[in-house]
Structures are given as structure tokens and as C-alpha cells.
């Protein structure tokens, strides 16, 4: 049944999409070529009925060894491999590598293999993640990226190898928390980490994108145009079309608003895309951020996307006064903006803040009610029970989206 441009796709078509359904969704919601490639691959895997197939540690060691040997042109030795926990979306293995740099330097490094499962909370490009980590090297503390297997030629699924970063994602007294959602760092640690949290965001957003080599798999947006934002909104809508279990009419209303009100870019920044508690490591004794992780959602775009994401209620908790909402367990919304303007020299525009507050709420609703729900139901990941648990965030996120939207449009 067709009404306007909206087309009803039933559950059976989502579970086993035909080429026509895949093409129809791609045509309706055009996005960046690399994002299109990733999402199309996801649908093709689903079309083929592929669930996640667990790999043994030995299989990953062998595949990683073959990948690195191929890239270096000489054999390497991997030892002390073990599973690495943390995060809801990727499979990770920590290992030691004895190898020789192209300049002849012999070294032993502790590295991490980061591999996609068959389906994920966030379908993303290992190539883009690899490129953006290179781009911020020396500016933002992030693990050095070494090698990438973009198509899963050596490993069961696409993967990359990067340096192991020391530090903790959660305070020692609260290690049971999942993925930094509502993480409370406590007053002392918070006071130490919050200035770094803002300062690094300011540094990231003020990198001169025009002077960066690489990032070939990112579209380069134009100041004064809103086309890059529209493509990003379309990529989210595409995930909603491809993954949702059931329709939510509110998502249709808000999609239209996001397209109609997309603001033109006033400055092009590297946007992390998942800048929040749980996605950085820190040294608890020194109170210092040691590494920013999870660059898979990075894009070239509007800084307000990261600013508003960091203060999403989904990643916040109430301060000791039980009234102040601390974004990412760090600081209140207005405090964050004031500190950011001072650190970056860039303005925080209230209109764009309102827009990206809706944008990010829309994103979170999609990642929970659609992507996570679909990935866990289709037995697509190595930790379906965790991905399924994250779906529980979906209705609070949808309510928050609706309430915020009503506050803006009224």
C-alpha cells in the first residue's frame, strides 16, 4: 500500500528483504556512499539468512596474523591473546604482537582486534573508523590505528587492529554498570574529568578539516549547505526502515521536521558521534582521560551534534542535589556550553542546539527500538542479551524525543 512517499514494508520483508526492497529503501533515503555500502551489506547478510557465527580465539589469532603479515609482507608472531570485554557492539581481542616496523624497528606491542558481529547496535564502517583515528592522531588521545580488514578478507567479519589503551571506562566502585549509561563518576573524579571532557571536545571540533589528508571515505560538507545533515538524517531513517520491529508514527512526524529544518553548516568539524560517558578511558588515580574510543560513528559535520549528544538524558544522572541533571555524568547543559565556547572559541547556537537535541533523540530511539531490537532478535551478535537489554532504553528515549519535540515546535 502506498500513501505519498511512505511505503509499508511488512515484517517478513524486513526479515528476508528482496533486492527490490533493498533498492527501494536506498533510493528513498540517499546517504553518504560509505554509509550506503555498510547498510546495504547488512541487508544482504539478512537476505542470505546469516546469523552471527561465533569464532574461536584461535580463529581470530590466525586471521589477525594473516592480516598483519599481508600488510607487512613478512610473518609476525601473536601471543597472549584473550577476549576483551566492554561495549555493546563489537567483538574485541587483546593480544601481543612481535613485529618489525617498515623502518626496521623491532617492537612488541599490546594491540586490540576490533571486529564487527553479523549485526550490530550501530552498523558502521571499519574503514571510516580507521581513517578518523588517524586524523585525530596527536591531537586527541586515541589508540593508534594500525591495520584494517574492511571487507573481512582475513577475519570472519570486517575488523581493525589498534593499540591497546590503558585506563578504565568505569570507576572501580561502579564496575557493574553497562556501557556508561547513566554513569556516576562521583564528585571528586567528576571535577577532575569534566574539564578534560570539554577541552578535548573543543580540540576535536577545531581541527582544521580542510588540511587533513585521508578521510577519503567521508563526504566533505560545504559551509552554508544543509545537505550533509540531510544525508545523515536519511541514514538514520534508513536504519529505521530496515530494522524496526513495529512502526511509531511519531518517528515519521519528526523525520519530516528534521528534513525541513536542517540548518546550514556554519563550520565543518570532525564530529565523534558518540561523545559520552563510557566511551573514554581514564586513569582513576590521576583523574586523567587516557583515550577516546568508539570512533565508528564519526562524521564531518556540525559540532552541535556532539554537544547535544553529550547531554542526552539517556547518558545523564542527577547530581547530589537530586535536581541538576549531569550530562554524561560531567556537568549541566548550560555549564557545558559555556565551558565549550571558552575552550573552542566557537559559538554555541541555540537554534542548532534545539535542532540537534531532536536529531540525537531521534538517533537514540532508532538505535534502541530498531537496530538493537533487530540485531538481538536475528541472533546477529556475540552478546544478544546485552543488545536486547539496551532496547529497554527505547521507550524512555521515545518519550524524551516526543516531549522535547513538542517543547520546540510549540
Amino acid at each position, binding site marked *: *500500500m502506498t500513501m*505519498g512517499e511512505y511505503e*509499508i514494508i511488512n515484517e517478513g520483508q524486513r526479515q528476508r528483504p528482496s533486492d527490490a526492497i533493498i533498492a527501494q529503501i536506498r533510493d528513498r533515503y540517499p546517504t553518504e556512499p560509505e554509509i550506503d555500502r555498510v547498510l546495504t551489506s547488512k541487508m544482504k547478510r539478512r537476505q542470505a539468512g546469516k546469523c552471527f557465527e561465533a569464532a574461536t580465539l584461535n580463529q581470530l589469532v590466525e586471521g589477525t596474523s594473516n592480516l598483519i603479515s599481508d600488510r607487512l609482507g613478512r610473518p609476525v608472531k601473536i601471543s597472549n591473546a584473550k577476549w576483551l*570485554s566492554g561495549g555493546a557492539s563489537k567483538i574485541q581481542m587483546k593480544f601481543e604482537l612481535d613485529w618489525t616496523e617498515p623502518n626496521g624497528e623491532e617492537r612488541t606491542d599490546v594491540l586490540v582486534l576490533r571486529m564487527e558481529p553479523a549485526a550490530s547496535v550501530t552498523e558502521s564502517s571499519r574503514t571510516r573508523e580507521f581513517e578518523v583515528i588517524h586524523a585525530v592522531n596527536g591531537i586527541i588521545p586515541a589508540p593508534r590505528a594500525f591495520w584494517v580488514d574492511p571487507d573481512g578478507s582475513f577475519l570472519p567479519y570486517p575488523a581493525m587492529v589498534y593499540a591497546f589503551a590503558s585506563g578504565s571506562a568505569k570507576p572501580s566502585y561502579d564496575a557493574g554498570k553497562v556501557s556508561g549509561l*547513566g554513569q556516576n563518576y562521583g564528585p571528586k573524579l567528576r571535577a577532575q574529568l569534566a574539564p578534560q571532557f570539554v577541552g578535548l571536545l573543543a580540540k576535536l571540533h577545531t581541527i582544521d578539516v580542510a588540511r587533513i589528508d585521508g578521510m577519503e571515505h567521508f563526504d566533505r560538507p560545504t559551509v552554508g549547505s544543509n545537505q550533509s545533515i540531510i544525508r545523515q538524517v536519511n541514514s538514520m531513517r534508513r536504519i529505521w526502515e530496515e530494522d524496526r520491529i513495529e*512502526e*511509531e*508514527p511519531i518517528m515519521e*512526524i519528526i523525520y519530516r521536521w528534521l528534513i525541513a529544518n536542517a540548518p546550514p553548516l556554519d563550520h565543518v568539524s570532525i564530529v565523534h558521534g558518540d561523545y559520552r560517558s563510557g566511551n573514554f578511558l581514564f586513569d582513576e588515580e590521576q583523574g586523567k582521560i587516557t583515550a577516546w574510543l568508539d570512533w565508528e560513528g564519526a562524521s564531518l559535520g556540525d559540532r552541535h551534534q556532539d554537544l547535544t549528544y553529550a547531554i542526552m538524558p539517556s547518558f545523564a544522572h542527577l547530581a547530589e542535589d537530586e535536581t541538576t541533571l549531569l550530562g554524561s555524568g560531567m556537568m549541566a547543559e548550560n555549564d557545558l556550553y559555556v565551558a565549550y565556547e571558552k575552550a573552542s572559541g566557537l559559538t554555541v547556537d541555540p537554534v542548532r542546539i534545539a535542532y540537534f537535541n531532536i536529531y540525537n533523540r531521534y538517533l537514540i530511539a532508532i538505535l534502541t527500538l530498531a537496530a538493537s531490537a533487530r540485531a538481538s532478535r536475528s541472533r546477529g551478535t556475540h552478546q544478544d542479551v546485552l543488545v536486547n537489554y539496551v532496547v529497554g532504553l527505547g521507550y524512555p528515549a521515545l518519550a524524551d524525543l516526543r*516531549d522535547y519535540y513538542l517543547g520546540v515546535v510549540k
Partner: protein
Amino acid sequence: MIRDFDAQLQVALTALQDIVAPALSGADNHVIEQLMLSVATVGFVKARLPEARRFYRMDLRSWIELSKNAAQIVSVPDVMAKTIADGVHVLTDPEADIADFENISRQLRDHVTALSAAAVGQPYEADLDSVILEKLGVLIAQNRQWTASFGFELQPENLPLAAW
């Protein structure tokens, strides 16, 4: 019925919590995490299973009500009118089960969304969207109450009481 669902889930939870969890002391964090999440998931099912039919019935009632409200604003297609009628019938059918409620609710979700998409630029667009946003606010709050045990609510005590 000796093998009632509640008892089956209870014994499984007891085994996981009292026997398996202590035995995993020292295991990798992700193993312990998956066990605890499994316990939480089974616990959710145990708590909600007895209420499931009432919940899905309430959900369908809400979608029928919203669909009828929409039909007062705009003429709905025949297929949607038939789905509304099917839903009304299912609500009064003592043999209807959860799958029947869920199936028709899902169809109405699609139809209401399609109506909203088709309303773009029409004089009734704002009225229709307003009804959707208002009615779904109530239903989303019930879904939050239904899933509150997963622990994502900042202030669960502020949620409206269960209406199912």
C-alpha cells in the same frame, strides 16, 4: 497444571542466581555481565507474563482509539477501516490471544503512520499530527511502565500507574 510458567522461570532463576553466579567468581567480566543480564531478562518475563494478555489488549485498544480519532479528521482508506473493525472484533473475542492483539496493533501503527505521511501539505496535517502526538504520549508512558524493571528510568516513581 503442574508445569506452570511461573514455577519454571522461578527454578531457572534460582539456579542462575544461587548456583551458577557464585561458581563464575573470577570469570571474565563479559561472562558475568551476560549472566546477570540473562537473570534480569528472565526476571522481566516472570514478572510480566501473567499480565501480558491484559497489556497487549490495552495496547490494541489504544491504537483503535487513535485510529478512530484520526478517522474523524481525515477519511481513512478502506483497508484501514477494515483493520479497525477487525481490532474491535478481536477485543470482544474471548478466544483471541496475544498474537491477534499484536498483529492488528502493528497494522494500525503502519496505517496511522501512512496517514500522517499522506497528510503533508494538507489542511488537516497539523490536526492529525497533534492527535498522534497527544495520544501516543499516553501509550508510550505505559510502555515505559511495562519495561521499567530494566532500570533505564531516571525517576520511575513518576511514571503513571499501569493501566492494563
